[in-house]
């Protein structure tokens, strides 16, 4: 990846000459020319271990048979893979492997797709010479999700190596010696790991299997649908396997999709969410204050009639719409078209507003793109990676794998600005791999970024070309930064100026540098400013236009990026182009053959405010759940209760849907076709795996039917037709290529930014945030020492910052319906640093009370080493109570509601 070698080697395999790149293994070279050498322990993702000895081949001028999985090709090598000697060797090795194998294929879930089965059919006689007793391991479970049958194990250690080399979790290890080697996890209790399912996927036999679908299927019964995971912005390829209309399992083949076959717990075990028994089966209509089942005709006619009446009475701007980014691009496109043409308003918004919009707006402002200028390949190939405010393992696990690959395999230098502290835990911690780690309070990420920029500016690391091109810009930044003395910076970040300087030097020295900015920044106050500052950092170091360099804001929901590009947001038209962009409006009007509404859009918080004030009378909500997402302080419920018409298109009866006048059952991603655009801007196909549950229909179909009833038909035959229309609008959109062609930054926009664009808020952006308000930056102060001595005696509790965030095992509220994920995590618990926990005298499972002015909650405690002192983390997926404590503040520029943290007092119950 990092360097593409053009050096090739010529060799002969089975008499056929082949030319392959230098360093290729013989087994890979053979595979390239269509010769399959049997193997168990070899896997292209893993370093060769050569322990199964199955892949022996004859190489001329070598004394013994060689393992093709560990022998790199050499010039002029002559390889024989099918001589008598080689076949005898395969036979004998298989005989050994089968000696202790229980041959319980009929009851093994791998039966039918098992490497051992295939090779035995090919190489061994049906009778065995093994007359002795087979060794027997007692049955052992890893966990409620993963089950092991060690009698079937061929000890290829693929699972162990995957867990270490790819996932960096190291949850598995071989234990015992010789034939009694078994794969185990480390503690006596159940396996506690990332549950990525990698061991299940990579096991060549049936030794490690998923318990979710144990014994429910035979491989040949399954129908497959290649689609895209719905849980995070990474956009992983998944293959949903179904039997009838039941979801049986999910996997992802090596080499497939942007994830290269790697999945996380959500992708691998979270697929049951869509077939949860609570799924809405039919439309619900409010009659006498109760939501009762109705037919589609009744429900749609009611909506259409009420809409027409309200529109006549109050005009189109009494309407508003909210759409979740979990919808497909087609849904998003039809939704905004419906709102803009049928209703006639721009007042639409979506869940990208919760944070992703900050990154997109920063990119548009500074470099004129709405997408990353890098792709996953650039992350893997980067020399330096700067991660800001992203607990990447938990929020975007597969992007995290790319970072891990870059660091572990290609020795990239990792810089992290994170609240996390490096710690050994049951899940991998990106801070452990970091070369320059700055552990700061979540609201102070921006300060460390300032520190880095200050180090760049004052260390003379500013790119020469930039100083010549925009001296005023450089001067303005250095002047503002000069006003912040190093001492203050050191005291608010807890990082020394030397450390910052070293990190800055490492960043500047790299030829390819990628900056990943996560929801930790984008969802906290000042997120827009920090994202812009990071672009300043790239500009100052002269990297913003270099290939393989760029800023990459990580999307939280699977189609946040698509929502931006489909224009399903207050400030964008499809494209995206700005709402007041005359050329774009004309183009769109020409295509839609209809004038676009003139009046400005409204963001989420504005819509809620207007609803509260009685200005918004009707609201369309597609998959969005403001009551469930925003804290009580946002008064979403009060706003929605005042509406005269609330239409919800939903999978489940959410908090918002409960208030609705009409609830329309929508299809989940597993039941419809379409496309998702992942965080790096790759448009990928979503394909239906099962028939719609109950009477549910795809969102675009519902909107299309409504448009017909309202007298303005927006009709499509299928999702492909919508995509075709989108492609007319955005050329090349959704042409499903192997990798996205990343956009280049628009030099005109950069030029404008460097000349005057920066000036409007440079003073505001280059200010320290949160100075003096927390003590978290100095964890081991003397007062902390004395606190520790008085463990358990703190009477009036401890002041902490509560951060409500994402965990690895869930995504939004949707995944809490997945039975597999609920086995791993089924309730929220407060993650506390052990020393904080000691200070109030609590251990795992103890109940605590959190209090602040807004309210209080009680919960149980979990001690987590990776949580820094002075901070408490709570999963947002179970935040029913926690939302009471949170306050909400709105970004002045991007209107993002910041509602993920609060200061609380914690006390033991």
């Amino acid at each position: 990846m990092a360097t593409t070698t053009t050096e090739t080697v010529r060799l002969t395999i089975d008499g056929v000459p082949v030319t392959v790149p230098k360093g290729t293994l013989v087994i890979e070279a053979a595979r390239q020319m269509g010769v399959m050498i049997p193997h168990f322990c070899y896997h292209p993702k893993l370093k060769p271990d050569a322990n199964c000895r199955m892949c022996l081949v004859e190489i001329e001028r070598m004394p013994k048979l060689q393992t093709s999985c560990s022998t790199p090709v050499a010039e002029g090598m002559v390889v024989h893979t099918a001589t008598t000697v080689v076949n005898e060797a395969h036979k004998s090795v298989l005989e050994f492997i089968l000696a202790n194998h229980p041959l319980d294929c009929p009851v093994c879930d791998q039966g039918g797709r098992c490497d051992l089965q295939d090779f035995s059919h090919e190489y061994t006689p049906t009778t065995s010479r093994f007359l002795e007793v087979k060794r027997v391991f007692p049955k052992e479970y890893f966990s409620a999700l993963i089950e092991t049958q060690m009698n079937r194990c061929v000890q290829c250690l693929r699972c162990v190596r995957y867990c270490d080399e790819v996932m960096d979790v190291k949850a598995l290890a071989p234990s015992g010696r010789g034939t009694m080697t078994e794969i185990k996890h480390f503690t006596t209790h159940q396996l506690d790991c990332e549950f990525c399912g990698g061991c299940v996927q990579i096991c060549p036999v049936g030794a490690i299997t998923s318990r979710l679908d144990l014994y429910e299927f035979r491989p040949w019964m399954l129908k497959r649908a290649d689609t895209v995971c719905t849980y995070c912005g990474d956009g992983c390829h998944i293959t949903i396997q179904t039997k009838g209309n039941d979801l049986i399992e999910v996997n992802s083949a090596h080499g497939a999709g942007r994830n290269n076959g790697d999945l996380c717990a959500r992708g691998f075990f979270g697929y049951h969410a869509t077939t949860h028994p609570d799924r809405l089966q039919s439309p619900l209509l409010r009659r006498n204050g109760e939501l009762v089942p109705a037919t589609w005709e009744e429900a749609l006619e009611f909506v259409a009639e009420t809409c027409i009446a309200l529109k006549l009475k109050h005009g189109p701007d009494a309407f508003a719409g909210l759409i979740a980014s979990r919808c497909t691009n087609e849904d998003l496109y039809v939704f905004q078209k419906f709102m803009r043409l049928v209703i006639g308003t721009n007042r639409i918004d979506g869940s990208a507003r919760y944070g992703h919009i900050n990154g997109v707006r920063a990119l548009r402002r500074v470099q004129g793109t709405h997408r990353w200028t890098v792709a996953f390949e650039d992350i893997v190939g980067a020399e330096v990676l700067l991660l800001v405010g992203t607990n990447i393992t938990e929020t975007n696990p597969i992007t995290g794998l790319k970072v891990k690959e870059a660091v572990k395999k290609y020795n990239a230098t990792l810089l992290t600005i994170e609240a996390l502290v490096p710690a050994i835990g049951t899940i991998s911690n990106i801070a452990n791999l970091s070369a320059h780690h700055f552990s700061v309070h979540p609201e102070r990420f921006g300060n460390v970024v300032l520190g880095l920029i200050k180090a760049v500016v004052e260390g003379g690391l500013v790119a020469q070309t930039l100083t010549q091109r925009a001296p005023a810009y450089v001067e303005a930044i250095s002047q503002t930064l000069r006003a912040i003395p190093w001492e203050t910076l050191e005291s608010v970040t807890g990082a020394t100026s030397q450390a910052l300087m070293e990190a800055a030097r490492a960043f500047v020295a790299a030829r390819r540098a990628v900056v990943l900015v996560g929801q930790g920044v984008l969802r906290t106050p000042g997120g827009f400013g920090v994202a812009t500052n990071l672009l300043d950092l790239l500009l100052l170091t002269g990297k913003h236009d270099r290939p393989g360099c760029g800023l990459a804001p990580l999307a939280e929901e699977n189609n946040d990026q698509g929502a931006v590009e489909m224009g399903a947001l207050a400030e964008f038209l499809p494209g995206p182009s700005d709402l007041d962009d005359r050329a774009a409006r004309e183009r769109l009007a020409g295509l839609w053959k209809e004038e676009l509404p003139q009046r400005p859009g409204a963001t989420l918080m504005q819509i809620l405010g207007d609803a509260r004030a009685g200005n918004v009378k009707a609201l369309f909500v597609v998959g969005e759940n403001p009551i469930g997402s925003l804290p009580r302080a946002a008064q979403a419920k009060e706003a929605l209760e005042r509406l005269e018409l609330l239409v919800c298109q939903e999978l489940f009866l959410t908090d918002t849907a409960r208030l609705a006048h009409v609830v329309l059952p929508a299809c989940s991603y597993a039941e419809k076709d379409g496309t998702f655009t992942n965080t790096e801007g790759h448009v990928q196909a979503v394909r239906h795996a099962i028939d719609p549950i109950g009477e549910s229909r795809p969102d675009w179909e519902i909107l299309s039917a409504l448009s017909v009833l309202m007298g303005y038909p927006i009709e499509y035959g299928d999702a492909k037709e919508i995509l075709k229309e989108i492609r007319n609008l955005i050329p090349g959109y959704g042409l499903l290529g192997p990798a996205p062609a990343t956009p280049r930054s628009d030099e005109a926009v950069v030029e404008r930014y460097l000349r005057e664009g920066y000036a409007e808020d440079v003073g505001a952006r280059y200010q320290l945030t949160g100075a003096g308000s927390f003590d978290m930056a100095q964890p081991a102060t003397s007062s902390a020492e004395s606190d520790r001595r008085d463990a358990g005696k703190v009477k009036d509790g401890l002041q902490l910052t509560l951060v409500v965030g994402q965990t690895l095992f869930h995504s939004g509220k949707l995944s809490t319906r997945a039975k597999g994920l609920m086995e791993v995590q089924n309730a929220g618990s407060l993650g506390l640093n052990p020393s904080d926990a000691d200070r109030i005298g609590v251990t795992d499972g103890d109940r605590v009370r959190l209090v602040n002015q807004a309210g209080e909650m009680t919960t149980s405690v979990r001690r987590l080493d990776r949580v820094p002192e002075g901070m408490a983390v709570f999963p947002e997926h179970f935040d029913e109570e926690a939302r009471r404590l949170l306050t909400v503040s709105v970004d002045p520029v991007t209107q993002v509601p910041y509602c993920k943290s609060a200061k609380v007092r914690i006390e033991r119950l």
Partner: protein
Amino acid sequence: MAMKFKAWLKTITFYEILVGMKATLKHLLHYRPITLQYPHEKRTLPDSYRGMLALLRYDDGTEKCVGCDLCEAACPSRVIRVISSEVPGEPTKRYAKEYYMDMTRCLFCGLCVDACPVDALGMTREYEWAVYDKRQLLLSKPQLLAIGDRSFPVREKRLELQHPNVAFFNVAFKFMPPKES
């Protein structure tokens, strides 16, 4: 010449017709009834007669079927449907939670019996399965077990030496301990 004469002779004596009628004429002369008075008389079945299918049990009453679905895969006319699952309370043991045979489609080819790795399927000598309602021919697991119980009263002994922790097959089949007398 002689050949021509022979052919001419065959033509004028209707020789071919006589050959064809040979069996008829024989039975005309030696009359013996072949028709069985079916409900009152029954035919002796050959030893390898393939009749109604049945599920079998071991001598201790446990069902043999492990729910491996191989019969379903082997069946050429999609008679069998197996819904397999874990044995409740005995994790990692597989069994057929539900087992259906749609006998209206069955060809009695016996491929399922051949496919069964644990000899849980047997072909009985029952054939009197005419019913008024076709739905009665959709047989469930208890029905199939009942057929097995009445047709195979002598049950196979359950394999010994099974480690309690091993799902099913972990036995060195060739070296069974000698049976204790």
